[in-house]
């Protein structure tokens, strides 16, 4: 099963290589990894999506915790979180298809950000499911290129 780990790390060079090295060396499967500075510029936050059974996730979490530069590991898989991914797709679109794609993308609240002679670029954000749905809906037109950013997530505030 996929788990989402929110990992706070020291923001200095080498940290990413230590974390990715750990995953490579021990054969853990990273689905997605995003690093960015937090509100405190000395600390970065990694959002790591990793695939594995309970025992592997336990090991991943504990091994991450052992890294000196890791401040905190939080498995947010079972928490109530907002998860987002950014998607760019270049899709075939002759003049007749352009209107149809625009309507379709409206439903997903995705945007058309570039119009070429025979193609469009669509931009969308959403959780993994929504992104998958958008891609599926565009497939019949012929997808030329897909670029996705990794998944980021944040735990929702108490209600």
């Amino acid at each position, binding site marked *: 099963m996929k788990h989402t780990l929110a990992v706070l790390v020291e923001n200095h060079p080498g940290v990413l*290589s*230590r974390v990715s090295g750990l995953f490579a060396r021990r054969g853990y499967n990273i689905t997605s990894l995003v690093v960015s500075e937090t509100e405190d510029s000395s600390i970065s936050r990694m959002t790591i999506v990793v695939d594995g059974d309970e025992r592997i996730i*336990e*090991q991943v979490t*504990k091994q991450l*915790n*052992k890294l*000196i530069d890791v*401040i905190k590991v939080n498995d947010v898989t079972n928490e109530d979180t907002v998860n987002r991914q950014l998607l760019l797709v270049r899709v075939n679109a002759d003049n007749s298809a352009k209107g149809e794609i625009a309507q379709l993308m409206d439903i997903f609240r995705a945007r058309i950000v570039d119009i070429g002679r025979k193609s469009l670029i669509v931009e969308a954000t959403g959780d993994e499911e929504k992104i998958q749905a958008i891609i599926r809906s565009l497939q019949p037109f012929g997808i030329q290129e897909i670029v996705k950013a990794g998944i980021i997530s944040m735990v929702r505030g108490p209600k």
Partner: protein
Amino acid sequence: MLGAELLLKSLEEQGVELVFGIPGGSVIPLYDVLKKSSIKHILTKHEQGAAHAADGYARVTGKPGVCFATSGPGGTNLITGLATAQMDSSPVIAITGQVASSFIGKDSFQEADMLGLSHPVTKYSYLVRDANDIPGIVEEAFFIATQGRPGPVLIDIPKDVFTQKVTEVRNPGVRKHLLEKLKKPELDFTQVEKAVEALKKAKKPLIIVGGGVNNSEGSNRLLQDFAMKNEIPVSQTLMGKGVFPADHPLFLGMVGMHGTIEANWAMQNCDCLLAVGMRFDDRVTGRVEQFASKAKVIHVDIDAAEHNKNRASDIPIVGDSKDFLEVLCEKLWASRNNKEWLRSILIQNPVEKVNFGRGLDPEGVMNLINSLLDDDTVVVTDVGQHQMWAALFVHPKKPRSFITSGGLGTMGFGLPAAIGVQMAYPDKKVVLITGDGSLQMNLQELAVIKQWNLPIKIFLINNGSLGMVRQWQELFFQENYAETILEVGPDWEKLAGAYNIKAKTLYENRELKETLHSSMANREPWLVDIKVDPGANVFPMVPAGCSLDQMYRSWKNEAHVSSIG
């Protein structure tokens, strides 16, 4: 003050008295000011030797051992030593020179990415960018190396940082989250309570101790108290040697691939296993799915990541073995009766001996060496058959006194490690049990022994081969002895003689006893070249990937061979 001077001062403040190393271009500024400090420098002949010597020092004292090397090849030569220390949780501090800051990243002369190279083989590593940070980094490096589960730390220092004028020292102290991360874990008492209950209920309890018990000062006494009062048999891993008296009836010896019959049998038949400070290495467990499969497992380790890594445990306890044993001893219920269980272990067959009579019998040699140990003798080994014979038959009497490369199995560890040990304790007797293959892997350090007149006794178990590999070829590769026979060995008497070290080659028992005794009695280095039976193998043996039940008790013995699955 220069960066180099500040570094030495910071090391002095950490209590460093001794470093091992070799100079080179980028560390000349450091060596240039060495004489101004109180630190003694031991010039090894290879950086690998420096790393293992620092490791030997660290293992025997529990204090960090320090080594220096220059940039590039100096640093890369340390890597095997760091990996060796990492696998056995030894607090080594490596300080490497780096090319000057402005040359970093340009494939400059003798540039190697030490940070990148060291990541997987150290607990942590630093690149120092400003001399003013040195005291803070050194303090934190020593903290990291020694706290929690110990391990090696590397500090890489560019040449210009050594010569930089210190202006305003910055020492923010150890990072806050590390104080938390590496502090001694508090025992979870509900877990301890569960462990006590499980042990009380057990009909066939067994203890196995590992290196963690050696590392935790004072836990050997508590272990002995606990085991003896409750009559629970004690087994050990290779790294756990020295914590329980080998002549005690409860002592079963080592578990694993070359474990004793009693220990392996007890492991497979116990109903409750108390595992303290060990990590279920594959050389200990054999086929892990079938390891101690009847037992409820209580696993105590300071490193939470060891729980459920190799073997799932029923009662994982994160903590220092001493803390745990202290509580356990308080909750002692004393004098339970395990007579039946003990008897069933001890009636397991002893090893059948096969002696080809083509040289000295290695087990006999080991028994003789064992009889020469006093209470404080430290035994150091290399890697191979001689190491396993030593583990089975040579029993130093105290913790931290069997120094061996367990996790990485590094040939060439022995000689330099013995140097580190003897440097740490000039008055202790140090015995190195090595092989003709291993000794040739860091032979150059004989010069250090001579230079400092270290009275190390080198007992070379000479079988004319890379014996352990040869044994595998004999047993599992149809006697295809590919590249394991050392056809040209040196004349060891002459070789030692070249360094002015006393040496003697021995072929027979009568001489052996005399020579070993007299070599032990004096305060000089000695190399004793003991020609053992080249066909001798280490038994018992559990083939790799088999369960501990599937044990070769001897070879050339059809009955036993055919019983192997």
